[in-house]
């Protein structure tokens, strides 16, 4: 084995020995400081040592609407915890505590077990206790060793809007999700966003917990805070601004009151959602404090499903609102031109089957504009015969159907766009016929869409062919960097269609609302601003039909788009369009200062 060519220089050894000695001297000095200099301080603590670590919960970031009106902020409440180690395990104490809190001894033990974080760390047993209970606990401190109270924040909703499904709610983190989030510093009993923007923007809204160490004597009396550099003040979360406009939201909720369905108002240029309603809803305050299991159960078992977010999750056939896509596809593929005309007798015969138009007597001579204006089914029956199902599906996917919109709300459904392979899979290769296509082209049967997909769809007409990602988060205030950060949306262009095609559709959708025979003339509520739209009625074999209206309003370059969806709401023209009309009227009056009655 190789030997050193020269002896290792002595200075090298000396550096090692000097460094080693230095480090050990520093180390010894530190022990000297603690054990000799500060000995009396530490023996004092050790004498009646009960150092307690109290975690201080951080208030979550406040949620504002786009104009800075508070949608959700924080209030504080008294919570009671016990330190398992200090708790005298003789049942007397548990019973006493239980009696005053109005819960059984077993419940306390169960909660201690549930919120267990270690023998020396407080386990939460009661939230939001009233002042009477609190003062009783404080008076009987000596008989209740190990029982402590903390002042903790909880969510408060100061406005009249519900905004239930957009805001979401907080839940105590437990079980498997606790395992998952533990590494981010979550502890048993902590609150975490469980639905809506509370979940989506958890990392922004969540504050940082603080800790302080307090010294208490053997009897459990707090002797004072222990001044240490480890004491950390809680840091509140970042404030979040939503694209929601509170007043408009309130109006939408009012308009949809008592109905079942969803409504979305969106800025078609940038995807900002101004209002998002899913009905039935419930007051978010139900979830802000301790939610009783009976409330939870009643919400969960309600047949109208108030917990269900219809904005992103309801999947239903879109009905005639889909017709524009077949028309545009036909133009783009040179299958027909816009002057192509059919005669509609009110039905279409295919083999031995007769496919009916919604209008019994038929529409007479129908060209492309009229087919949209009056929603003529026969026109599309005839048109789809000239088209491959896959071509139609391709045109529909161009508008983002069959995939998620990327809206910043958790749990989005993507609907369904049937193509040949889907139909083959569902019915078998020979199990479906040309007739199914006729059904699909008028937006029935296998086609499924969500209201938020429809919002993106109609907005593309309003903004001249841009597919835009709807979003609810506008910006947040980054406390660490002391600046606002924008939450942006993405756009991509639908490049296939010529400006003439878009113009034609716009013209047709204008007529839908503005001519007496247009299916949505009930939405025509304003004079100066222009309204465009399309109705849809989704046939329902199991009950009342579902109603759709999609549309937008334009005034001096400003636009809003709207989607109204009514589950079992009946015909779209009669039921959904007037609701949109109310919103158009309101928005026109409030935002664009247009009054219909004068000028």
């Amino acid at each position, binding site marked *: *084995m190789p*030997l050193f060519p020269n002896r290792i220089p002595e200075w090298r050894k000396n550096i090692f020995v000097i460094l080693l000695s230095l480090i050990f001297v520093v180390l010894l000095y530190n022990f*000297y400081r*603690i*054990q000799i200099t500060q*000995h009396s301080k*530490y023996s004092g603590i050790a004498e009646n040592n009960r150092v307690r670590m109290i975690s201080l919960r951080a208030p979550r970031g406040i949620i504002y609407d786009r104009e800075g009106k508070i949608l959700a902020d924080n209030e504080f409440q008294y919570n009671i915890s016990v330190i398992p180690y200090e708790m005298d395990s003789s049942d007397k104490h548990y019973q006493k505590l239980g009696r005053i809190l109005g819960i059984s001894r077993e419940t306390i033990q169960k909660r201690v077990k549930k919120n267990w*974080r270690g023998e020396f760390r407080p386990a939460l047993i009661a939230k939001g206790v009233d002042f009477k209970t609190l003062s009783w606990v404080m008076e009987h401190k000596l008989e209740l060793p190990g029982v402590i109270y903390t002042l903790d924040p909880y969510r408060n909703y100061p406005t009249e809007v519900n905004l239930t499904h957009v805001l979401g709610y907080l839940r105590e983190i437990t079980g498997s999700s606790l395992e998952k989030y533990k590494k981010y510093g979550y502890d048993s009993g902590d609150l975490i966003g469980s639905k809506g923007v509370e979940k989506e923007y958890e990392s922004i809204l969540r504050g940082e917990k603080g800790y302080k160490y307090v010294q208490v004597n053997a009897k459990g009396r707090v002797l004072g805070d222990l001044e*240490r550099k*480890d004491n950390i003040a809680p840091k509140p979360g970042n404030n979040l601004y939503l694209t929601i406009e509170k007043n408009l939201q309130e109006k939408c909720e009012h308009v949809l009151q008592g109905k079942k369905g969803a409504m979305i108002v969106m800025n078609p240029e940038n995807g900002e959602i101004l209002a998002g309603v899913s009905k039935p809803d419930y007051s978010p305050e139900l979830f802000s404090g301790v939610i009783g299991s009976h409330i939870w159960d009643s919400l969960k078992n309600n047949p109208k499903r108030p917990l269900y977010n219809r904005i992103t999750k309801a999947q239903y056939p879109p009905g005639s609102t889909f017709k524009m896509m077949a028309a545009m596809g036909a133009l783009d593929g040179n299958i027909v031109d816009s002057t192509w005309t059919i005669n509609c007798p009110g039905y279409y015969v295919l083999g031995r089957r007769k496919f009916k138009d919604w209008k019994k007597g038929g529409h007479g001579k129908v060209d492309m504009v009229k087919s949209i204006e009056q929603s003529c089914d026969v026109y599309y029956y005839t048109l789809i015969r000239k088209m491959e199902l896959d071509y139609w599906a391709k045109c529909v996917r161009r508008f983002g159907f069959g995939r998620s919109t990327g809206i910043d709300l958790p749990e989005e459904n993507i609907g369904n766009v049937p193509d040949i392979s889907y139909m083959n899979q569902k019915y078998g290769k020979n199990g479906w016929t040309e007739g199914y296509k006729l059904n699909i082209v008028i937006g029935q049967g296998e086609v499924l869409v969500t209201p938020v997909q429809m919002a993106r769809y109609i907005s593309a007409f309003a903004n001249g062919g841009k597919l835009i990602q709807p979003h609810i988060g506008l910006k947040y205030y980054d406390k660490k960097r002391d600046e606002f950060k924008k939450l942006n949306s993405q756009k991509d262009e639908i490049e296939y269609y010529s400006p003439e095609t878009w113009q034609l559709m716009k013209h047709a959708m204008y007529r839908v609302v503005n001519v007496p025979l247009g299916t949505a003339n009930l939405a025509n509520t304003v004079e100066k601003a222009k309204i465009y739209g399309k109705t849809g009625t989704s046939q329902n074999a199991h009950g009342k039909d579902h109603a759709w209206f999609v549309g937008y309003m334009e005034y001096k370059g400003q636009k809003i788009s709207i989607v109204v969806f009514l589950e079992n709401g009946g015909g779209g023209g009669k039921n959904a369009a007037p609701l949109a009309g109310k919103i158009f009227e309101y928005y026109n009056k409030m935002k664009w200062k247009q009054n219909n009655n004068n000028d």
Partner: protein
Amino acid sequence: MTENNRAYKKGFDKITWGILIATFVLCSMGIVALYSASYSAEGPFFQRVVGRQLIWIIVGIISAIIVSMFRSKLIYNYSYFLYGAGIVLILLPYFFPASEGAKRWITVGVFQYQPSEIMKILSVIAIAKYFTNTNISKSDFKIIFFPLTMILIPTGIVMNQPDLGTAMIYIGLLFPMMFWAGVDWINIFLLVAPLISILSAFNYYTFFIWLIIFAIVIYFQHYQLWKKIILTIANVSLGLLSPVLWDQLQPYQQQRILTLFNVKTDPQGAGYQVIQSQVAIGSGGLFGKGLLQGKQTHLKFLPEQKTDFIFSVIGEEWGFIGVSLVLLSYFFLIYFGIKAAYNSRDQYNSIVIIGLVSIIFYHVIINTSMTIGLMPVTGLPLPFISYGGSFLTTCCILLGLLFGMKKESKYY
């Protein structure tokens, strides 16, 4: 003083005795502290802990004797092979169920073994071999590439397990060994420089001061101008970029990185442990409270008192005297190790010995500093004292190897 007429030095000289006595003191104090830490009126628990530790010490002594009999030539020849086997070993825990969320142990029945312990020694062996027979000049920066890679592989693996403490030891080993092997200090400097550039960049002043130091050091090197410029630009831009990149990260991503450097899954719990440990040590005073009198210990305020925080038990019950005795024993153990390395003429043996005592050194410094809050809680045990078979036997094997290397060295 020709090369061959010096016989191997055999037998027990001053250095051997020094190390043996220091180890004996440490093991004895460890047993007493363990007795106290596991004492309870009921009895059987204490017997189990101290009894087991004694068995491990015996196992350790036997393994040490066996290892000390290996020819160092044999170990030298198989260095890289042993290193490879070590990598396989530390990958094994991934095939065993995780314990408390960590994949560090190979579990067979009640027996748990942490292979990343023995990997410390195997890394030392391999790096020493590289420095012994490399042809690259010690002044060439290229000399650090291979050992750096060899150390980064196991470091990456244990970081993932996750075990930051062990990862720190692996990285730390590299520096004393490079220095001892005669690698130019400028190369070591260039290795550490990017890290300092990143860390110092979070404050204007530190970054500025660091850049001045860096510039001066580089200026006096006999590098070509382009090399100097590239090195400077690389470090400056690294420093300038890192805060920008950090800010680009989402809060949850930053959190993820921060948690990586705070391995205890329960950071608040760690704060509590340190307070209790400090109270225990501080209340011990000069002479300590005496055996079994430690209030912190026996009221179980002190967490992990048999393993990571055993030193706090010594501090409480034996006071500053006990603390000094333990620290002095470690000092002499390491000091005699350095002396043995200095006296050896065999490059390989000498560098291995330095690596071995570095392991002991880092463990002692990190563990004892942690008990008084000078360093974050990383869960590194105290050599010869903490309860636990994997590490105790590793320490004994380490000593056996050290004696073997020393015994087979030609001496000046």
